[in-house]
């Protein structure tokens, strides 16, 4: 198994992601975007960071780099793809997933721990959680506010494409527990098929026991399915 963690100029969670995946026994390697996808790619992770300095919009440049065409083709063929933070912005910018992540309601960069409620436990990324379970993951973003038209939002809700919502410690979705003003407190969504997903919180930063909580590990286990 080789999970390709794609490194763009300005990615900065690429090595953390490889280490997190490797520590779980999932084979992963750094792939520089200009080198293309390795032939034995069994999964693709778009890591966090500030690809291309967030020029124009976060993720806009990376989404149009040539390797993303290969990522879209692989996704269409069933290869699991997970975008985290800047990777989530890239995923939405490249239409792998619906909607857009834009400037936080606070207009500030926010780096903190948040609680998330598992909305759909029937996806590769959430199958090890229970529906309604509350987990804790870190966020670190300035453009994490999920935006989408109300019509599309209703469709996503109806189709069970929302992975996580920001909530309080007890699982209540409240405006106070929504760190960035995301519509419907959405923290992560799937593409048309659920083997493609994006999320703003960082599961790879909560996956090593030595560093504290490991709530994010089950998300990364989605690559093992």
């Amino acid at each position, binding site marked *: 198994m080789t999970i390709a963690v794609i490194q763009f100029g300005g990615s900065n969670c690429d090595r953390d992601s490889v280490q997190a995946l490797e520590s779980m026994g999932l084979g992963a390697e750094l792939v520089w975007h200009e080198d293309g996808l390795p032939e034995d790619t069994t999964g693709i992770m778009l890591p966090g960071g500030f690809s291309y300095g967030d020029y*124009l919009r976060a993720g806009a440049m990376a989404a149009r780099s040539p390797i993303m065409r290969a990522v879209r083709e692989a996704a269409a063929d069933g290869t699991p793809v997970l975008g985290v933070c800047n990777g989530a912005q890239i995923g*939405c*910018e490249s239409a792998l997933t619906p909607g857009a992540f834009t*400037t936080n309601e606070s*207009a500030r960069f926010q780096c903190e721990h948040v609680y998330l409620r598992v909305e759909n436990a029937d996806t590769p990324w959430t199958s090890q959680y229970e529906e309604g379970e509350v987990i804790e993951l870190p966020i670190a973003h300035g453009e994490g*506010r999920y935006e989408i*038209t109300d019509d599309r939002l209703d469709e996503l809700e109806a189709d069970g494409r929302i992975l996580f919502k920001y909530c309080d410690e007890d699982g209540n979705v409240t405006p106070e527990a929504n760190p960035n003003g995301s519509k419907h407190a959405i923290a992560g969504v799937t593409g048309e098929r659920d083997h493609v997903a994006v999320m703003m919180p960082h599961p790879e930063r909560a996956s090593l026991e030595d560093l504290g909580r490991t709530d994010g590990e089950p998300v990364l286990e989605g690559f093992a399915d």
Partner: protein
Amino acid sequence: MTAFTATVTVRLKRGVLDPEAETTQRSLERLGFELQDLRSADIFELDLEADDDEGAAERAEEMAERLLANPTIHDYTVEVAQRE
């Protein structure tokens, strides 16, 4: 071929929250200015050559669709003028 400048203005759709604009407005108000609302936009000036206005506008629109704007959150306008 004629030289044109196409001006693409990209702004958030009405109803999409613009925290930076709100912060800017608050800052102006703190300086003592009175205003009812403030909207911000990005302007891109593209120098290009085309057979006519329509050709220049068409290419600029395609650039807006494919990169300069994100149709989920943005509207855009294109204006074309001949360049000296």
